[in-house]
């Protein structure tokens, strides 16, 4: 029972840390991106609103909004992996994270975005997969979809520079 309580507390800590990490970035707040955790997998959600539209006649999401959503998802995945590792260490690390001392964000080196389908006036979702996590560079694939997971609206491939060791 004590073990279960401890585990639940740890899970609650993680949810709180993820929410705090998301909210610490002003551009995440502007777009209204949220993240949900299922096991070790993050799912991003971009709730639809008129301010995200590019073509008001269709209406369709602005390519820049979709591209931003993918890039936010990639950076948050990398940042979350670092935060999550610190929570695992427990003690002072976990305490620092709980107090909002997050690691420095990785930097985007290059990205390629493929726009497959027009983003419609509904919520979008995205998941990132870290294909390689090196000491200096990480390579990610991110997919965004709306009502059908297997019909992505856009995909991103990107290289990201990880923050310096001991930085």
């Amino acid at each position, binding site marked *: 029972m004590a073990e279960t309580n401890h585990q639940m507390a740890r899970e609650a800590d993680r949810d709180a840390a993820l929410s705090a990490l998301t909210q610490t970035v002003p551009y995440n707040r*502007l777009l209204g991106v949220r993240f949900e955790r299922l096991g070790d997998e993050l799912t991003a959600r971009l709730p639809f609103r008129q*301010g995200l539209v590019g073509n*008001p006649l269709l209406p369709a*999401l602005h*390519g820049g909004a979709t591209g931003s959503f993918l890039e936010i998802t990639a950076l948050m995945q990398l940042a979350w992996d670092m935060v999550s590792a610190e929570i695992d260490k427990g003690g002072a690390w976990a305490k620092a994270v709980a107090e909002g001392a997050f690691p420095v964000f990785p930097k985007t080196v290059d990205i390629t975005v*493929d726009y497959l389908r027009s983003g419609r006036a509904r919520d979008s979702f995205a998941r990132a997969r870290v294909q390689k996590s090196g000491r200096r560079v990480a390579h990610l694939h991110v997919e965004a979809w709306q009502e059908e997971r297997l019909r992505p609206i856009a995909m991103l491939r990107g290289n990201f520079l990880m923050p310096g060791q001991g930085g």
Partner: protein
Amino acid sequence: MSRQENDEPQLGALMLGGTQPLLEPVGEGELMSGLPFSGEIGMRLHGAGGSVAILSVPYDERLIGDPQTGVMHGGVVTALLDTACGAAVMAVPEKLESTATLDLRIDYMRPASVGQTVFARAECYRITRSVAFARAVAFHEGSDDLVASAAAAFVIERSAKRTKAGG
């Protein structure tokens, strides 16, 4: 860095920074409120014509991607370059009904400077029956030190071809 002599000399100078100033005085520009998301992030259009478009995004704390440095989110630069390339495509001499981004590749050479407006200059350098190709650079006024460069392909719909409704 090798330079191709006969291949788009103007664009070559644009892409490499060149010796000529990257930006002549372009005034305040106009808020792009016709595209809601562009308007939301404060994107401005300074001019479009002859297959070229110049846009900008003034620095704004809502657009910060790294709270520790205050640098704008890469997604903002992505949105700016995507929109600039699209505007350059719409600025070709041929009459187009619409454009949709097919793909967009962005290289981030350095973080945008805190507090400074990011400009984008885009050029549509090739147009076929149904596809247009564009390149763009993002930079700060008076600086040859590029923030980012982009290459994009767009699916286009030509006005004259549309003879039937609901095509």
